[in-house]
């Protein structure tokens, strides 16, 4: 069983709103000073799901792939430290500023180049753009079945059993291999690597691939190949001006709040 985990490095979503800034000229987020980028949390959970399947089967391989700049090595190393066997970085200026479709094309090409992949695990969405497209598009490009928003995944004989989160509950689906799974936060916390694992991962070599290695023309990836075109990225204005409820005791605060809400005919 060879499972690929797709991992993305993103600006830390816990960046306080006061430190979140946009460069209007380039429509890009200005990296917050002193706040390092992180592995998207949903991808860390996808890695956890893949590793548990490998461990339950007692054999197999997990490869982590990231499309990004050289700094994305940190995201790859984190998944290696969690227990992944190999890492691949897809780093080429031609890949930059693409949309979900070009990103999926690059990742799917790398998965095809690896050749012997049985399953691809992705986060349900990246916690920066929150599109939730790449896993589905990889499945479409490879023509593999896909199960999205998983809260559980396990091997059942020759098939993969996936528990999915729905609006009103859960469903269990069975999917034949090869398959794509996108994993949601309901799966649970990813493991935290210990120091010896972090040090071992640091020594591992990450394979690098560029557009040419994947047989991709620069015109079909990155900004050049994008169909969804970003026109403007901006910080929305916040409407409300808060009125703090006065009162020396919780009882006084409660009484004042109730009288305000009654005056507004809200209760």
């Amino acid at each position, binding site marked *: 069983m060879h499972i690929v985990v797709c991992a993305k490095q993103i600006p830390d979503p816990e960046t306080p709103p006061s430190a979140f800034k946009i460069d209007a000229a380039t429509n890009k987020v200005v990296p917050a000073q002193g706040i390092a980028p992180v592995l998207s949390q949903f991808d860390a959970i996808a890695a956890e799901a893949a590793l548990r399947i490998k461990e339950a089967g007692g054999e197999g391989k997990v490869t982590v792939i990231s499309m990004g700049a050289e700094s994305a090595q940190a995201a790859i190393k984190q998944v290696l430290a969690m227990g992944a066997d190999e890492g691949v970085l897809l780093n080429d200026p031609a890949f930059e500023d693409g949309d979900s479709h070009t990103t999926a094309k690059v990742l799917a090409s790398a998965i095809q180049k690896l050749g012997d992949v049985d399953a691809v695990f992705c986060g349900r969405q990246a916690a920066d753009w929150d599109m939730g497209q790449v896993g589905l598009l990889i499945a479409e490009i490879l023509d593999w079945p896909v199960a999205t928003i998983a809260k559980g995944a396990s091997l059942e004989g020759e098939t993969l059993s996936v528990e999915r989160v729905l609006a009103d509950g859960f469903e269990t689906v069975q999917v034949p291999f090869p398959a794509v799974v996108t994993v949601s936060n309901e799966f649970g916390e990813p493991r935290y690597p210990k120091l010896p694992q972090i040090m071992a991962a640091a020594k591992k070599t990450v394979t690098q691939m560029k557009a040419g290695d994947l047989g991709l023309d620069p015109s079909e990836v990155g900004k050049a190949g994008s169909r969804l075109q970003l026109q403007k990225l901006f*910080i929305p204005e916040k409407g409300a001006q808060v009125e703090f409820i006065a009162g020396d005791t919780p009882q006084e605060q409660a009484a004042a709040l*109730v009288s305000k809400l009654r005056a507004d005919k809200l209760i």
Partner: protein
Amino acid sequence: MPQNILVVGELENGAPSTVTLELLGGAAALAAGGSVSVSLLGSGATAAAAQAAGASKAFVSDDANYDTFRGEQWLPAVQAAVEQSGATLVLMAQSTAGRELGPRLAHRLNTAVAMDCVKVEDAGGALQFTRPAYGGNAQATYTIATNPAIATVRPKSFDEATGAGASETAELPAAGASRVNVVGKEVTESEGLALTDAPIVVAGGRGLGAPEGFETLRELAAALGKDKAAVGASRAAVDLGWFPPSEQIGLTGKVVTPDLYIAIAISGASQHMAGASGSKTIVGVNRDKDANIFDFSKYGVVGDWKQVIPALIEELKK
């Protein structure tokens, strides 16, 4: 500019779902002289077409195999509806189905989808799609260079359509095979009123400190009126196992727009506010007067929820 719009509808108890009617409302405003069609799949689809307000034509299949959503089965039918309607714009909900259909349909039609839009507008001839990004810290506006443009739309972004339903129907093919096999479903029974219907929502976060805090929140909801108030939770509280995922409010959960939203021990992270910021009045209860929730609140109570909420329950009972 006139647009031929296909709304990918979803059925709920044999009728077009609320968000389907919202999409039809949005479509009516965007069509500008073009046509509005709807696709409906599953038991009762043909009968439901008459309730699809604002659509002139409905593409339907009553095949019960469509009742449980499976992407591989829905995609060929929706693609046929797009092609037969001549759609230049396809609208669907940011729902379980829309989240899966949007990207896959875009791939099959060699076009692109803008996910989770809160605004779709005709800006001087070009459609513009606006959606939150970076957990709601930012908003992004896109155009789509290819045809048709596809958007999934966040619930409550448009007003529901009114008026007559579709007078003409066209038959879509029955469901084909699916490699993804649904073998079981478990419905989470929510206690009391549905979160998305309640005029008052009481929500709790990690700051409650323990799952027992939600019992106090249920008491508050009961004091506000069992037929009026529902209880929800932030993702942080759900991830801790304190409350069921089906009652999560936020970017990866439900979107609510009640008249009154009472956020208790919730910091107000963008991820959460993505599901609540459309509420008419927000009341924040938090120990930290600098908490982000107060940026969204009309009224703020700075204090320990363990003291404030029981006092509030007592006051409401007076």
